[in-house]
């Protein structure tokens, strides 16, 4: 939360003209990195993110290997040119290290780790351009990458954030909203039973706002999930189409 906060709500609409429960435009493409076992490219608002999955492969270094199940490693990073303003330094920051950890934990939940004892699955999330909500967009992309790698999961996870601007709750905060919002809460969901796999929050929310915020995320999930499934199907359909007509 910064001072000199600009007006984020004008005529009961958000700065970019969205309603409070409206997502930014989202497009997902699967299979963008040839070398990876699975990959996905997501454009979500002005976010541009690539996620790729390698594995399962032999776990390295050896002492990290778990003979009973697969281990997951995750790297989340932002490009030096991802911001509108300054030139970012490459290399891990405390922020990116934390985000890498919570993303890893999301996938440890949904991937059938016992299927691949002694192996390692690597998740890479590269934020080429950032516009608020990069970790949520990164998880949504990584989930498609994991599915396109054919790694069995019990559900296709999606993530989105909800925040508070003054007394209003707003879904899927963009960069300006994220910078000046009164509260921000990214959430990752396994949609089948509505299990929450990632939850972070800062700022302030009442108990009523918390319930309403989670409900907003859960109902937005249908649209996000559909985009994810469509991206996975599109990978096949585009080749099929060559032979139609």
């Amino acid at each position, binding site marked *: 939360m910064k001072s000199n906060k600009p007006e984020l709500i004008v005529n009961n609409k958000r700065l970019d003209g969205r309603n409070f429960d409206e997502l930014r435009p989202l497009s997902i493409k699967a299979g963008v*990195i040839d070398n990876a076992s699975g990959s996905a490219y997501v454009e979500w608002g002005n976010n541009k993110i690539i*996620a*790729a999955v390698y594995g399962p492969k032999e776990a390295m270094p050896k002492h990290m290997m778990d003979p009973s199940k697969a281990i997951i490693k995750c790297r989340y990073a932002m490009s030096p040119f991802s*911001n509108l303003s*300054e030139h970012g330094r*490459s290399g891990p920051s405390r922020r990116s290290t934390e985000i890498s950890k919570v993303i890893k934990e999301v996938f440890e939940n949904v991937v059938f780790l016992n299927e691949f004892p002694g192996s390692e699955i690597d998740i*890479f999330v*590269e934020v080429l351009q*950032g*516009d608020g909500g990069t970790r949520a967009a990164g998880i949504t992309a990584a989930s498609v990458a994991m599915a396109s790698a054919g790694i069995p999961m019990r559900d296709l996870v999606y993530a989105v954030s909800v925040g508070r601007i003054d007394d209003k709750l707003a879904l899927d905060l963009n960069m300006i909203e994220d910078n000046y919002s009164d509260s921000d809460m990214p959430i990752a969901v396994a949609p089948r039973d509505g299990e929450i796999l990632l939850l972070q929050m800062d700022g302030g929310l009442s108990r009523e706002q918390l319930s309403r915020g989670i409900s907003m995320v859960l109902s937005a999930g249908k649209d996000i999930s559909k985009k994810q499934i469509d991206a996975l199907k599109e990978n096949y359909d585009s080749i099929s189409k060559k032979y139609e007509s």
Partner: protein
Amino acid sequence: MKMESIDMIKVNYIKSMLAKNMREDSRGMFDFRNMRITPGTMGNAEGSAQVELGRTKVLAGVKIALEAPMTDTPDQGNMTVAAELLPLAHSKYESGPPTPEAIELSRVTDRGIRAGSCIDLKSLFIEEGKAWGVYIDVYVLNYGGNLFDACEIAAMSALLNSTMPTYEDGKVIHENRKNRLKIDNIVTSTTFAKIGGSILLDPSLDEEIASDARLTVTNDGSSIRSMQKGLRGSFYQKEIEELVGISFNKHVELKSLIEKRV
């Protein structure tokens, strides 16, 4: 890097094909793979370009920042090119500090553009104590061989795509970008690989594994601007002279491809 058995088998295959004067994808010895340049893919950056060269995919982003000039050159701005081998680009790349391989790629990419005087660093000077710093970061997204040429051409295309932030009352406004970054010269890069007795342009991933020596030549159509010989093997003077000639021929094609997409 330990060579795996599957790589050894590929090397033998590439060599047996070359013995018949053939390449695995039936290209001519001095043909590039298909190259696609897409400038302006990243709007937050001052300039950007994605280059696909066969299966290799790289993305260059340019950020232009206000900073103090270096003390030894108080009347000019600064330029830095860095290439990063993202771990998602190939299973052999890992997270962590840059490897010697990545540092060489960064420095060779930087050298071509710097030696080519593509940007007049004096033109980046604003006022005493203030100058523009131009940062070109090249991200390797998928490694499919010949990163040197892909990165150089991406960096060059991204520079040509760049617009300057505005500077008003001591403040930088990145949202307001009007004037193009002034580019004085266009350099292009050609990388050759020597495998046994054969020399070829634009090595693929498998051909790089099989390479004994590598030569990168950067030129601007009138002068050679930078060169880098890599790996254990060697070249003779005659070979180098011939390859430089090919490099000049390729410059015409590559330059028009870059300019067409700006």
